Each structure stands twice: as structure tokens, then as C-alpha cells.
């Protein structure tokens, strides 16, 4: 019985493009690219939507504040563009790609918890116009990122 439900759960999961039964129990979405500082990027032609991963929000705890950049500023791969605060610790959010910020998620000013509740959807943080699409190749895919998280958690 447990085997059957696991089978259906994994079929459903692969349809929804989320991987389950991850030891860390944090979800990782296929088709996104990931940075080793736990940000994700959804690439769509020349633009990218960026947020932090489920693994990151889980480790942070309740996000009480998100520091957003101004629209129009430049971001550089690997450099900080904003910050998230949770229980007395504020940490940098680094951009997985370089480019120009074209939109920020203003909802996060009043509802920073969206980062926890919906890290890949409503909790998106910025949208960027890419300056160098080649950079995407240096990011991890979902399988590589899952493995990376496992290794980091066992550190």
C-alpha cells in the first residue's frame, strides 16, 4: 500500500516537476538554475526571475524583512543585491546572473513571509534583463543542486 502511494506520489511529483523524497525534504524545481549561495533563476530568453530556494528559506526560518534593490540598478553574478532578515540575522542575497533589475516584487515589503511560503512562485524577488546569457551555463541544474544541498547539510 505504501509502495503504491509512493509510486503515485512520484508520478505526480514528476508531472509537477518537483523532486520529492529528497533527504533534506526541501523541494527543488526542475527547469530552474541554481547558484551555490541558494538562489534560483528562471531563465526566459533574455530575462531571468530570481529568488531564494526552499532549502534557503527553510534554513533561515521566518523571513521578517526583504531588502529590495531599486529598479534599474545593475547586478553582477555572485554579488549581493539585497538581503533577507530572519530572527536577528540579516543575510545577503546574491544574484545568480549579471544584468539590470527590471522589476522587484513589491509584495515582499508587506508580506516578507511569501519567501517562506512560496519560494519559487509568489516569493520571487527580482527580475533581471541578462547582460550575458553564457553565465547561465555556470549555474547548477536541479539534480546538481539537490546533490549540493545534501553535501552541504552533511558538512
Amino acid at each position, binding site marked *: 500500500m505504501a509502495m503504491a502511494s509512493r509510486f503515485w506520489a512520484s508520478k505526480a511529483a514528476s508531472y509537477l516537476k518537483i523532486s520529492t523524497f529528497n533527504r533534506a525534504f526541501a523541494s527543488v524545481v526542475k527547469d530552474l538554475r541554481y547558484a551555490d549561495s541558494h538562489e534560483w533563476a528562471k531563465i526566459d530568453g533574455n530575462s531571468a526571475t530570481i529568488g531564494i530556494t526552499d532549502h534557503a528559506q527553510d534554513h533561515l*526560518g521566518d523571513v521578517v524583512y526583504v531588502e529590495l534593490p531599486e529598479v534599474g540598478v545593475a547586478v553582477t553574478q555572485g554579488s549581493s543585491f539585497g538581503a533577507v*532578515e530572519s*530572527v*536577528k*540575522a*540579516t*543575510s545577503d542575497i546574491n544574484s545568480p546572473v549579471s544584468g539590470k533589475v527590471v522589476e522587484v516584487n513589491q509584495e515582499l515589503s508587506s508580506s516578507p513571509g511569501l519567501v517562506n511560503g512560496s519560494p519559487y512562485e509568489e516569493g520571487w524577488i527580482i527580475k533581471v534583463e541578462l547582460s550575458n546569457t553564457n553565465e547561465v551555463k555556470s549555474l547548477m541544474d536541479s539534480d546538481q543542486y539537490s546533490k549540493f544541498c545534501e553535501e*552541504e547539510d552533511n558538512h
Partner: protein
Amino acid sequence: MIAAVDFCLSSPIPSWTILSHSDRRTSWRAAVSPIISAESNSLFQQSSRRRCLFYDMHKEVIPFAEAWSWQKSVVEERKTLIDSNEDGLDALIALQHQPVYTLGTASSENNLNFDIKNPPFPLYQTERGGEVTYHGPGQLVMYPIMNLRYQKMDLHWYLRALEEVVIRVLFSTFGLTASRVEGLTGVWVGDKKLAAIGIRVSRWLTYHGLALNVSTDLSPFKEIVPCGIRDRGVGSIKELLIGYDGDDGKLIDIAHDSLVKEFCQVFQVELCHQPISMLNH
């Protein structure tokens, strides 16, 4: 096996320790500074602990802006090293501040009982987490700049570890039983907070840190809702020591020595005194 020692700063024996694997990646500048052993009374050298640069200004009252600028430049320097796959050593700055109020990233003006444009003391909006707090003479402030890759890459662990340092100091040196309150980072004796904690993390490098009220004048805390907590108060070691009428300076020294010792224990580091001029380069 750990030998029990008294941490003694008065007669340091400079010595060289064998660099551990993680130390080999440190910059040349850090490698040439002498080590002051935590066990200056014994021949046994602990070479397994990571070295940590120590800027000890605990008897001095430093303007907030200056110390803030030191921290930021140390962090920037380390990030540059990390970019080229090296790293500097961790650092600890210990000092007292001139009277100042500081805000964290999410701080609300509602927690100020004064007009933000006309504060009774200088007010700084910083990049650390946490709400408004006060720093002033009589309060020991510690700013550890640690790369959590060498500790645990877990912010909650780090906050709990900072609390642990203070809890141990209060108990072992002052016989005070302190505790944590879930959801309210800091160190409490009863319903009074003795130590406030607020940090910033950038690429796993932490800065800002903790502030412990030793003999602080607590009246400036009345002008704020400290850390945004309305139904609890703020305390100090001095007011909890019944019958203590000794010198404040002596109390600060005793608390400082204990903080340093417990810091080394909790974070498993060996402190290495640096001249303050190194921060101003």
C-alpha cells in the same frame, strides 16, 4: 583531553603553531603574527584550534561609526580573498561604545519613544538583523567576524552559540542563571535581557554581534522599546549582584576576561592579539 587553564593575558609567550589544513589557505599577513597561547602557564600548546585575530579595546569607549567602518573593511578584505580561493583569519573586536542607538534592517520607528529626526543620542541605521538597541559605556560589545564555513553554516546555530558564550559567563563568573527565550534572541535573567544580539551575514562571513550590559547606565533604554519587546525589561550584571559596591572598571575586566575565555571555548579558537592600528590601514 583538555587541560584546565586560567586564561592569562599578562605574560604571553609568543609561539608558532603548526598550521592546520584549514589554516594553510590563510593570507601571508595573518601567518606572520605571533600566537598568544591560552595556556601561558603551561608548556602544552593547543595547535588544533583555529587562530582568531583579537582587537582588544574593552577598556575603551569607541564611536560606533568607527567600529562599524572597521568591521565593513575587514569583511570586504576577506571577501576579496575568498574570491581568489583564499581567506583571512577570523577576527574578534571587543570594545565599549559611546552612547548610541542603532537600528537593524527591519527596525520600526514605532519602537522609538522620540522623534527619529531628533534623537537624544546619535542614531544609526545598520545592516544587522534585529530591532533598535542602545550601546554605551559599561556595556561590553563583541563583534566576531567569523567565516561560518569553519564553524557550522547555520545562522540559528551561530545565534545560539553567541547566547551560549554569555550564558556561560553569567553562570561561571557571576553565579547568575541566565536563559534563552524561544523566538526572542538574546540572553535573559528572569524577564530582563542582559545581552542583545544582532548579526549580518555576507557569504557566510558574520559581523555585528553581541552587547552585554555589565555596569551600563540603563536609563537610555527607556527612550526605546528595546529590540521591539514591550513587556520585558533590560538588566545589567551590576544591578543583579546584590551587595556589589566595587569598582565598575574591575567588573568590566572580570566580565571581559570571562567573555573571551568562553568565546574561545564555544567557537574552539585561539586568540591572537593584534595592535589596533591594523584596523586603520
